[in-house]
């Protein structure tokens, strides 16, 4: 089961420093408001905060009561109110209401707003408009990187995706640049930065400016190379059903901030348990990257081993038993607990998946990826919608169909959209607007004249003009060109070959051997070539915006330096657990270690739900 790891796999840097830094800053900020105070925390900051501090730390710094921000009048009687919030206009407006209500009631309190990871002018403008600018103090808690595991860092900003890709708002671009800068100054200097996508370029640029403004302290680099990638370079991968254990657990139980809540059906008791899922959990660590079909075998083997270990007790004398209890028993008990949870989770996954015809769903997905029997796929999706099965699943399949086919035929688009609205409600008109804007679900242009015209123009004039033309079109609706990309990069292995999922031969194993994730394949190709050279056709199909830049000073480039094999991959707009698994696989194969930095962990449901919320 365990992959033969290259023995010289480099060590990962220690990211616990990041946690210490933000914790210290939070304490400092709380001390800025001396005395007892009540703390209001934005709902989606609770879990990240949990990973950094705990209640007793807050209490030590005179936080009296803790509240969740709920947009309701406050019941607190404290003299001092502190708000730990995201820089959102809605939240600030609520705080303004609170302060103004106090004013009307003649109540005098002190208020402090701590914005994280930064404050925005627009929020301060609200304070000003509502007439409470000056009545409250504001601060920033630069909590922009949360280590979720030894190789995953998250900005915990799921809204990055819809703000940037859907609304075209670049408010978080600088935040991402700052996060990168922090990593550069603590674990750099980086020797090389590659990237693809408009946002990646901007993040690079904002990071570079900060590097030039500041000073890099000379120290041994712990991270060598960096790869930045926009989520819209590859929408196919996050829309596929996940079949690697960690991804499946995320799809079904939703992992939140590295923590999952298993319900009674998993624990086979009447209560739920919250479990941290990371490399500390030994059982989980061994199965997280495995294809689900291998997990059962592994778990039962593990259970047998555990039994043998327990059985050792028999025939022991007192002394031996004493040693056993003090040395082994605790470990065994822990393993036992972990094992029973993951067995329970696997069973629950199986039950849920068989209930919803998972096999057929996967078959349709694979056909779409291969471009095979598209009519059958469409009729499968139709039936899925007609039967009012999950609204998100239907949408996911529609999007996959559109991206892989480079848009739907107008006739199909109309009919599928109508059926969708009839099954799930006309309000989804807005969802379709969002999907079109993102290029996730579009109508083919009549005859697809654009491509023809582009390529003709491209031949006649120089590439620059052609590039510009492509851009003008792609600004309307991004073209996916998935088929051409798939051929160029051999993303879909030949279907007639057997694929042994126990001994994966490439990253396609994360999708049962049916598809190599485009995002990860790009990373592999660029690292192999150490540039974009030879990938011109690919980048053209991806609408360009690729870059590679080498640092000129400070970095030790020698191949012997282990840090050069530590690669930081930053996903702008989110990445999935499946992609992380694929990169871990690639790392083992090539002797790299990947560190994934993402604006948030995503999956198909989160991606699509973000678009539903936007309009309600």
């Amino acid at each position, binding site marked *: 089961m365990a992959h033969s790891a290259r023995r010289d796999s480099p060590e990962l840097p220690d990211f616990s420093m990041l946690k210490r830094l933000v914790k210290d800053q939070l304490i400092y900020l709380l001390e800025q408001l001396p005395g007892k105070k009540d703390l209001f925390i934005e709902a989606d900051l609770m879990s990240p905060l949990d990973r950094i501090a705990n209640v007793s730390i807050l209490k030590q710094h005179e936080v009296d009561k803790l509240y969740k921000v709920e947009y309701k009048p406050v019941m607190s009687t404290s003299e001092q109110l502190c708000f730990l919030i995201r820089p959102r206009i809605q939240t600030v407006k609520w705080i303004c209401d609170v302060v103004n209500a106090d004013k009307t009631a003649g109540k005098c309190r002190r208020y402090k707003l701590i914005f994280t990871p930064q404050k925005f002018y627009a929020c301060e403008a609200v304070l000003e408009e509502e007439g409470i600018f000056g009545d409250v103090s504001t601060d920033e808690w630069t909590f922009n990187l949360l280590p979720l595991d030894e190789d995953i860092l998250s900005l915990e900003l799921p809204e990055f995706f819809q703000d940037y890709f859907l609304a075209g708002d670049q408010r978080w671009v600088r935040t991402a640049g700052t996060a990168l800068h922090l990593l550069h100054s603590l674990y750099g200097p980086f020797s090389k930065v590659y990237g693809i996508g408009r946002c990646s370029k901007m993040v690079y640029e904002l990071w570079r400016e900060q590097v030039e403004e500041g000073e890099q302290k000379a120290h041994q680099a712990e991270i060598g190379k960096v790869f930045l990638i926009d989520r819209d370079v590859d929408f196919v991968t996050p829309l596929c059903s996940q079949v690697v254990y960690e991804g499946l657990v995320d799809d079904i139980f939703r992992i939140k901030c590295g923590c999952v809540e298993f319900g009674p059906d998993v624990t086979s008791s009447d209560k739920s348990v919250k479990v941290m899922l990371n490399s500390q959990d030994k059982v989980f660590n061994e199965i997280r990257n495995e294809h689900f079909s291998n997990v059962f075998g592994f778990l039962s083997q593990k259970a047998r081993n555990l039994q043998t270990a327990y059985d050792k007790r028999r025939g022991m004398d007192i002394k031996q038993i004493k040693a056993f209890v003090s040395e082994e028993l605790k470990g065994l008990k822990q393993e036992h607990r972990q094992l029973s949870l993951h067995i329970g989770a696997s069973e629950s996954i199986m039950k849920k998946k068989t209930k919803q015809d998972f096999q057929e769903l996967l078959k349709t997905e694979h056909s779409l990826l291969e471009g095979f029997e598209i009519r059958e796929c469409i009729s499968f999706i139709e039936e899925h919608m007609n039967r009012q099965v999950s609204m998100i699943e239907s949408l996911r399949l529609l999007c996959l169909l559109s991206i892989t086919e480079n848009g739907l035929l107008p006739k199909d688009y109309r009919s599928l959209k109508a059926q969708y609205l*009839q099954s799930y409600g006309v309000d989804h008109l807005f969802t379709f607007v969002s999907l079109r804007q993102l290029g996730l679900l579009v109508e083919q242009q009549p005859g697809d004249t654009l491509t023809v015209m582009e390529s003709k123009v491209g031949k006649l004039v120089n590439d620059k003009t052609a590039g510009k033309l492509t851009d003008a079109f792609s600004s309307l609706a991004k073209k996916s060109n998935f088929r051409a990309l798939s051929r160029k990069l051999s993303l879909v292995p030949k279907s007639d070959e057997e694929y042994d999922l126990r001994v994966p031969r490439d990253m396609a194993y994360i999708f049962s051997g049916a598809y190599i994730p485009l995002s990860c394949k790009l990373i592999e190709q660029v690292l192999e070539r150490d540039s974009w050279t030879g990938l011109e056709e690919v980048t053209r199909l991806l609408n360009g915006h690729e870059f590679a830049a080498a640092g000129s000073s400070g970095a030790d480039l020698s191949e012997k330096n282990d840090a050069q094999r530590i690669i930081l991959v930053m996903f702008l707009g989110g990445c999935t657990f499946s992609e992380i698994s694929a990169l871990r696989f690639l790392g083992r194969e090539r002797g790299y270690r990947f560190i994934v930095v993402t604006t948030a962990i995503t999956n198909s449901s989160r991606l699509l739900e973000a678009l539903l919320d936007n309009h309600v």
Partner: protein
Amino acid sequence: MMKSKADEEDFWNSSKCKPFTFDDEDDEFSKLKESKQTVKNIRPLVDEDEDEDDVEKISWSGEPVGSISWSVRETAASSQRTEREPAFPKINTDTPAISRSLSGYSLSALFKGGTGKTKGANFQSFTDSQSDSSVRLYAPELRKPKSEYKDIVSDWSPEHTVQRMQQGKVVHLEKFRSLQDKLLLLDFAVSAHDGNVITAVLIYLKRTLSKEVLFRELESRQTALRHFIHYLTETRDQRLLLELLRALGRIEDVALLQYKEHLSIADENKRRDFLKSCLSLPFSPEDSAHVQDHYTLLERQIIIEATDRHAERGGKVEIFQKFPRRASILNMPLITTLYYCCFYHYHESEGTYSSPLNIRQTFRISDKQYFVTALAARAKLKAWSDVDALFTSRNWLGFTRKKSPLSFQRVVDILHRNSAPTQVLQEYVGLVDDSDLRISLAQKHKCHDIVINTYRDLKDRQLLLGYLSKVERGSAEAGKINQLLSNQQIRWRN
């Protein structure tokens, strides 16, 4: 006002820089005009800037600085003539190379000194004691007497201002009074890629420019426009947003935005009336039909709901007693409504509003949609004769046969989910064409007869023998298998 091609080339030649290699922004050719003007405007500013900052001016010289949204690209090698070698090269961006350090200034310190740092001590003066290094006041500065900053801040360039805003430092936006200055500020904000600053500048422009002028200028600045739209959406400034979209000629967006207001209307009658008023909005033809359907559906749901609630309360209608309604039908999707009507009003004549056939007709529901929904509803009620009738069609000779717009495999699945008994399932499993699929379905649903008959037809003695172990010993099925196996007349293949 579009410049001709020749003009463009002139421009590029005169600016001594290579044409861009890729495109970053939503450029239209019309942008050229704007950028050219910007370049013109910027020269004097640049010159003034010189004594203030000598690192920056170098990067100005080779580049058409104002062509911000136009994206001037130079390779790092040709454009970067900064004094120290940058750690990383600039890639094609819109920003002129900036690498100045602000260590020379102590402006923020001066401000702090002037206003008195009374952090925490005096609660009322929090404005003054904002926070240590990151004093991010931009608007309140408007109110400060000129004398307070006049000497210190003489002429910050828009670029410098944007840079300070990015760092959260004090800036004086009221200095930007002419339209050209305001736009320059905006363009620099856009070229700095910082959405926070772009929005801040837009808020300032919104306050100081008339709507007409602002809208006009935003039209050619896509990035800024999208920030502005997002800002208006977030602040829920629906009125201004509608005006903006109208000014931009985006009438379909206007229609959708207005239509969206129905979501905030709770009362169903008011909602229906509102939807009616939406019918005349300029939707695309396709969406127009959807909105029309939405209105018709709600109108009908209101009628059905009133009638059924009455019937349910009256306690005389059997079906409502046997299967009490779990929720109101108001605002449910069309297919849910159809299901509801197939459940409670299946046999009504086509003339009533709640008749499934009437709904099918009114909303142009496809055969497949109707079929799936009716099947599920009747199966739920275990009305097997209705189920049977759904499939039955007569050909021209008057023979009946079973037809389905849905694969029989799917039909079996739907019936099974609604816990249909084996006898019912058997009938439909038998209609599956593909023999392998038929057998696997039959095995799954324990339709032994079908399995046995299929094996018999295949003359496969071995499989039949194997199946004997899967049926109950001594059952009718086992008897049948034994009988077949001992039948001398069958010519077994194996």
